[in-house]
């Protein structure tokens, strides 16, 4: 599993405060803690407290702060192409990058895919188009295919494409998890080699009381359906252990009595 750690996000109070105070330390500590807990990629998101006009500059600063402590892949998280470009310019100098994200809307694909090609990055494609979030398996597949085709046209290798079927909160759309699981397994058949499939996991439990429990249950189900990347909180140790165990049960890794330790120490 490719674990994209979600904790460097201005929406979290400690990170939001660090941005406001221009204090790199909490960002760097969060980067190191997530990596130690098993994150493969670190998501960087300026959040909404920063004024729109300042976001490119803040993204640049956050990426620089993170890059001082790690060369691991970073996921530059913003719907704005200016913010993403600002992040890519500094992040790609020292290590791999993933663009998070484009949608399947034509104007977004036309803007973001060439950017992925230019910087040699990965790219997450959301199943959203001009009509909004697709909410049936067929509609999600249609947009997924559009994203895959756009990647091919722009010479972005399939190993760099991450399709996100978008999971909606179970509290507001109880049909969404089942549709998402079905979509995950179908996404894996869109091309050979297949694209990666990723979800923003914590979305499934928005507004619910049993957030951790719902996240954990859905993560295990999504792994069984073929999902191979997830944006979540790697500091949730139980969640991570369930993820590692799910991969083991799917025969994606070789069992040993110390399999949990082996994963966390050596990936």
């Amino acid at each position: 599993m490719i674990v994209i750690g979600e904790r460097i996000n201005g929406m979290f109070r400690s990170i939001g405060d660090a941005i406001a105070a221009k204090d790199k330390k909490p960002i760097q500590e969060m980067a190191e803690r997530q990596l130690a807990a098993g994150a493969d990629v670190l998501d960087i998101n300026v959040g909404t407290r920063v004024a729109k006009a300042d976001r490119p500059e803040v993204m640049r600063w956050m990426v620089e702060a993170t890059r001082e402590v790690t060369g691991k892949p970073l996921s530059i998280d913003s719907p704005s192409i200016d913010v993403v470009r600002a992040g890519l310019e500094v992040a790609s100098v020292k290590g791999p990058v993933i663009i998070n994200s484009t949608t399947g809307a034509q104007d977004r694909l036309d803007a973001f895919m060439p950017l992925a090609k230019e910087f040699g990055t990965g790219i997450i494609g959301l199943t959203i188009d001009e009509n909004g979030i697709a909410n049936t398996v067929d509609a999600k597949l249609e947009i997924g295919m559009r994203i895959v085709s756009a990647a091919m046209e722009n010479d972005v290798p399939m190993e760099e494409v991450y399709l996100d079927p978008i999971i909606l909160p179970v509290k507001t759309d109880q049909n969404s998890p089942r549709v998402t699981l079905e979509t995950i397994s179908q996404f894996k058949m869109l091309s050979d080699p297949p694209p990666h499939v990723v979800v923003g996991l914590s979305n499934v439990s928005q507004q619910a009381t049993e957030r951790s429990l719902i996240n954990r249950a859905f993560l295990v189900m999504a792994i069984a359906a073929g999902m191979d990347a997830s944006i979540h909180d790697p500091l949730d140790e139980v969640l991570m252990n369930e993820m590692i165990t799910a991969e083991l049960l799917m025969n994606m890794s070789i069992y040993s009595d110390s399999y949990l330790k082996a994963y966390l120490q050596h990936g």
Partner: protein
Amino acid sequence: MPLPEATERWTMAINEVTIGAGPDEGGTRKSVVKVGGEKSLPYMHFEAPMPNRTVVAMEVWDCVPTDWAPPLMEALGDVVNSPAEWAKACEAKFGAEMICLTLKGTHPDFGDASPDAAAAVVKSVLQATGLPLIIWGGGHDEKDNLVLPKCSQVAAGERCLIGTVKEDNYKTLTAACLADRHNLIGESPIDINIAKQVNILASDMGFPLERMVMFPATGALGYGMEYVYSIQERGRLAALGGDKMMAMPVICQVGQEAWRAKEAKATAEEFPQWGDEQERGPLWELTTAVSLLQAGADIIVMRHPKALAALKKVIAELMKP
């Protein structure tokens, strides 16, 4: 119609392990071998060239074997009376690329030689040959824990390959090899889960994974070889797919296993339809070895000079792109 692209893309390479140290590195070896480093399944040169060919080692015992088949003893000759002479012959006469010194004589049932006596044998073999050395315990855990640290110590600086550590007996030897900077063999009983566990246990003690070799146990042709083959292959697939705990080169004890088979050692008198035992034994050993090459063996330990020479030829052929 164009053929579809069939090459596999793997995410990880097998670790490259260096065995033996020359004078420039504090040892006295005249040759040093590198094993592992593969980036694809064996001999798939179109996917990735094999950086190192499989190395052929020859078994030398610290005592005279009493139950080896006559064709084997005849081929080796008088040298079996002295481990140093035996090792010398392996290098100069038989063409071995490594010596695998098996300390069978330290086993309580096979002479119970003392740790000091074993260490003296190790020293004599190191003096007699310039080849890199594998030191293999006598197979009695408690005794090995007394013998092998001594041998490790007298061979410090030579960067030997010493084994074996097992799931329930790994601490003493791992610590010794760590201190004396040797490479280490992790043994498992044809069990991929235990193979991984042994590697994790040694690694937990701070032993570098890059200095480990796996011994997943070997089976001879006709005696479980398909099972051994599939375990070895699965381990290799997992390693190439990114499992760092399985990314070690593999050693196979082919001579030892092949010569346990009745088909290798029975005389023509007993089984006339099986043919001349002078040819049959080495062939049994060779066929076992060649099969395991395909499963990804990086070091093969042989016994019969003729089988060893033929195996080297096969490897040279397979290495041609």
